[in-house]
């Protein structure tokens, strides 16, 4: 079923209300003064003449009433630097003023005097502890996943194939920059409006830093112009800053990052390095896999430990291998903290694995699709964490569908012939990737969250959905309305989704981890069914009903009995067991499964790669809203195209040097192919109507499919992304002395 996007009309008319659209008559603008060095000590702060400083509200770490930290998993990240600087965009001073132009002038007149300390900028330097910059050993987290005994297989293997792969940082690049408005006073507390994915994360951070009671803090999500993980943890920083300024000024304060600041200071996808050592038989059976996976967390822990978990758990892919050892490390460097980005570690480890699988196939002389076929996981098999697959994945079926839709076999042959002709300037390639993605929080995460969602009746006979899940473009409002409509047999137009406001909605957890439809949607479905049950038991609704019967019953109930609300709390399905100490067991309730195929052209004159066509075939349980679901896949694939060949964060001494949209390159409509989306359905018992999570999946498969295609087209040994033309030139020709190109 396809219903119109709930808030679509307001968006198409420009009437949707985003944070920067908020206006108060006495509004101040806020800005952040940042460090200029990567690591060091602050020896002083001076305010140079040039602006009327008495007109400004100035906040430093001394003005923080609660704990000076941005509360995430750990409390290591200061809200404002107090003596120490650990990355070049570290916030040190906050300023507010009614005129944003005067404010900008003032920002440039704050001088932070520092003593510089040696810094660390790469994964290898951090692992080698060239400097210890965080904790005792620079490690935010290390983990080990073991299955079987990988040490026993090396001696008897026909072949041992090794490879090292790396991926770069990537900016989420939501088109609406981060921003918050805060209104605070000592009596009534603080209210914050803003662009965000996770209202209760922001709430928690505010309570911690401001030292307020939970009921004195209210967080309201405004329409949010994209998130993709980039508005998971960072909004806590801006909200806290805006609230501190507002508290001191006694006036509302708006902080909207401009694009340059947003690019430079906010979180990125973790750069990664993965080493593979794989034992295989001549016939292409995987015998043992040893994987060493490391990610760069930047200066503070943020959520790196869970990014590491997801990345490591996905590192062995949708393959059955009896002996697996995966080591993972999340390390500290003196760059701004990295954070969530769609896929959350999995795109990094899956890129490595799927490039490695093509390498293995080539070494063994087996077609890459055949190598996969010989190793796919099936029902009853155990994954790397020992999770027994209760569901029935059909990777062979997806592989066949995807390859056929792409014309893979014919094209592979035709391209190989055409590429062999030395006159061919534009080489063509086709390649694929096979992968899976676990939906919901990893391991016991959902159990610990214990999310709640609710529905309630209105006197007019409408249903309101109450959840902290945010609409960020993905269609949460629409899907929730559709789930309720389906559960209750009423039109989706009668369902309203209440804007997330921590003073109104229950905590249904963050809007992350492909969990909104599958986990929270299920809670919404259960809450709706619970409400129907109350109506039935009250004798106002029969076992079968028409929509108007239902509406009648609802309004009668509200009139005669009073408010009607039904809550549903997450209960972990009984089959899920997870050992967090040893990384053993059911890492996820279920997985989505997929095979993606990319067709590319590589211009050998300019080394530019263009993705000409793309097929994305996946099994995601039941598809609730086909148009929204396809939109998620198409958007995710396009971000994956960026990850693969366009998007490079140029890191110079910890600072993003290309922090403008002119220089940080995301695909335009002319760089993006037609994306053919294929859904196979296999309903999941614990998802609403059988749905599984879908949001992150498409990011995982695009980059390896594209790079496998580029490798086929050019023969270049490609081990790193982004594969910009400059990198492809190097991969093809090596570093030659000048003049030899002639």
């Amino acid at each position: 079923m396809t219903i119109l996007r709930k808030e679509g009309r307001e968006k198409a008319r420009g009437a949707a209300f985003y944070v920067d659209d908020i206006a108060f008559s006495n509004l101040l603008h806020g800005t952040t003064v940042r460090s200029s060095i990567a690591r060091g000590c602050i020896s002083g702060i001076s305010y140079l003449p040039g602006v009327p400083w008495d007109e400004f509200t100035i906040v430093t770490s001394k003005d923080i009433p609660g704990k000076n930290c941005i509360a995430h998993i750990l409390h290591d990240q200061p809200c404002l630097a107090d003596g120490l600087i650990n990355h070049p965009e570290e916030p040190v001073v906050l300023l507010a003023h009614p005129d944003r132009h005067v404010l900008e002038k003032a920002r440039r007149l704050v001088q932070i005097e520092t003593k510089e300390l040696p810094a660390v900028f790469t994964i290898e330097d951090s692992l080698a502890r060239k400097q210890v910059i965080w904790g005792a050993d620079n490690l935010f987290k290390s983990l080990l996943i073991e299955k079987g005994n990988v040490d026993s297989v090396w001696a008897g293997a026909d072949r041992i194939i090794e490879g090292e792969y790396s991926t770069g940082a990537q900016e989420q690049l939501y088109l609406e920059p981060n921003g918050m408005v805060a209104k605070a006073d000592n009596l009534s507390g603080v209210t914050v409006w803003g662009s965000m994915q996770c209202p209760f994360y922001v709430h928690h951070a505010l309570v911690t830093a401001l030292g307020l009671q939970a009921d004195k803090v209210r967080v309201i999500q405004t329409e949010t112009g994209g998130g993709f993980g980039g508005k998971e943890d960072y909004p806590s920083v801006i909200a806290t800053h805006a609230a501190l300024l507002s508290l001191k000024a006694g006036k509302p304060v708006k902080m909207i990052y401009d694009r340059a600041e947003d690019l430079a200071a906010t979180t990125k996808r973790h750069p990664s390095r993965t080493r593979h050592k794989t034992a295989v038989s001549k016939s292409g059976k995987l015998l043992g896999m040893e994987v060493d996976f490391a990610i760069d967390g930047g200066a503070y822990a943020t959520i790196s430990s869970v990014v590491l978990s997801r990345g490591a758990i996905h590192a062995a892919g949708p393959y059955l291998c009896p002996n697996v050892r995966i080591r993972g490390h999340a390390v500290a460097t003196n760059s701004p903290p990295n954070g969530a980005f769609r896929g959350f570690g999995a795109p990094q480890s899956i890129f490595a694995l799927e490039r490695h699988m093509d390498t293995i196939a080539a070494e063994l002389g087996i077609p890459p699709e055949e190598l996969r076929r010989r190793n796919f996981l099936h029902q009853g098999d155990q994954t790397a964490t020992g999770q027994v697959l209760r569901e029935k994945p059909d990777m062979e079926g997806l592989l066949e569908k995807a390859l056929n839709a792409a014309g893979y076999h014919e094209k592979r042959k035709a391209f190989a012939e055409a590429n062999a002709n030395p006159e061919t300037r534009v080489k063509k390639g086709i390649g694929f990737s096979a992968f899976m993605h676990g939906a919901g929080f990893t391991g016991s995460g959902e159990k610990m969250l214990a999310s709640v969602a609710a529905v309630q009746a209105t006197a007019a006979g409408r249903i309101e959905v109450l959840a902290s899940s945010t609409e960020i473009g993905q269609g949460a409002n629409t899907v929730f309305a559709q789930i309720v409509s389906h559960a209750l047999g009423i039109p989706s137009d009668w369902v309203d989704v209440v804007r997330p406001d921590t003073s109104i909605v229950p905590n249904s957890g963050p809007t992350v981890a492909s969990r909104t439809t599958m986990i929270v949607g299920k809670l919404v479905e259960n809450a709706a069914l619970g409400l129907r049950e109350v109506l039935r038991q009250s004798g106002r609704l029969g076992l079968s009903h028409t929509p108007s019967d239902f509406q009648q019953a609802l309004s009668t109930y509200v009139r005669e009995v009073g408010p009607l609300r039904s809550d549903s709390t997450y209960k972990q399905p009984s089959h899920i067991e997870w050992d967090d100490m040893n990384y053993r067991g059911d890492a996820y309730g279920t997985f989505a499964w997929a095979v993606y195929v990319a067709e590319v052209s590589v211009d050998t004159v300019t080394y530019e790669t263009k993705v000409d066509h793309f097929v994305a075939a996946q099994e995601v349980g039941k598809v609730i809203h086909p148009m929204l679901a396809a939109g998620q896949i198409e958007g995710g694939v396009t971000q994956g195209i960026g990850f693969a060949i366009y998007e490079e964060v140029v890191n110079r001494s910890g600072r993003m040097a290309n922090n403008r949209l002119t220089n940080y390159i995301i695909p335009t409509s002319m760089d993006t192919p037609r994306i053919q989306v294929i859904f196979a359905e296999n309903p999941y018992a614990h998802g609403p109507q059988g749905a599984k999570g879908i949001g992150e999946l498409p990011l995982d498969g695009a980059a390896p499919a594209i790079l496998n295609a580029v490798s086929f087209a050019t023969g270049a040994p490609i081990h790193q992304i982004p594969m910009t033309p400059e990198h492809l030139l190097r991969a093809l020709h090596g570093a030659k002395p000048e003049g030899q190109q002639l």
Partner: protein
Amino acid sequence: MRGDPGNFEVLTPTSLPEALRLMSEAALDQDSPLLKPLAGGTDLMVLMEMGALQCERFLSLHAIDELRSFRPEEDSVAIGAAMTFSRIRTEAILREEFPLLCEAAGQVGALAIQNRGTLGGNIANASPAADSAPALLAYDAELEIVSQSGTRRIPYSAFHTGYKEMQLRPDELIRSILLPRKWKGCHQSFRKVGARAAQAISKVSFAGVLRISDGLIQEARIAMGSVAPTPLRCVHTERALQGKKLDFSAIGRAKEALFKEISPVDDIRSNREYRLRVSLNLIEDFLLSARK
């Protein structure tokens, strides 16, 4: 928004003589800050956003109709300096006789930029990556420069004298860009290599024109962008081709000449290694395609 719009004064003459008078007055008045021409704003407004706009006084050209005119004459065409890229790419005579310029115009930013950006602005912004520059160099463009003291003409190839430096006095305006109508029937090609298909600043750009008759190259024009401190007409490469038969040895000599005459650098968008290699590939590809 890091610049303050309240810091800038803008004059808006409605005729060219008035504009030139204002420019002249500003140039003579030692106490007055310089007056900088403002056309479509596609470069200057970006600098203001970044808080990097140095000049304080502007002369907006938008109300001067004369600067937007297109005047075809028998031997040449005159493109008004304030003509936008959108108009350039759709002007029939230009499409017919100066396709490289139209292709370049069609690859400036994207449509909304082409609707505002002007040819004169692209020239006076003096970036080595200016999209229109290689085509203008390859077509032997001349600039018609005016001031209160008169009009002068200068070959475009002599206009840029160093990185962001040009032969333009503070009291002068570029009035028009003149292109001789002598390139019909020539083999010609333009290539912009940016980081993506649209909204890109060139990493390397190339324009080449060859007049071939009797199996010999009678005339060659090779020009490149983003490989030197200024847009570069590659005269040594042209000389290596002039009067030659277009065979592999000529191609090899052209590549050698080009290798010596360009001086690309590493920057935020690309690197010397890539620019050098791609430049050589582009000339080779151009010359090979001319053999077909």
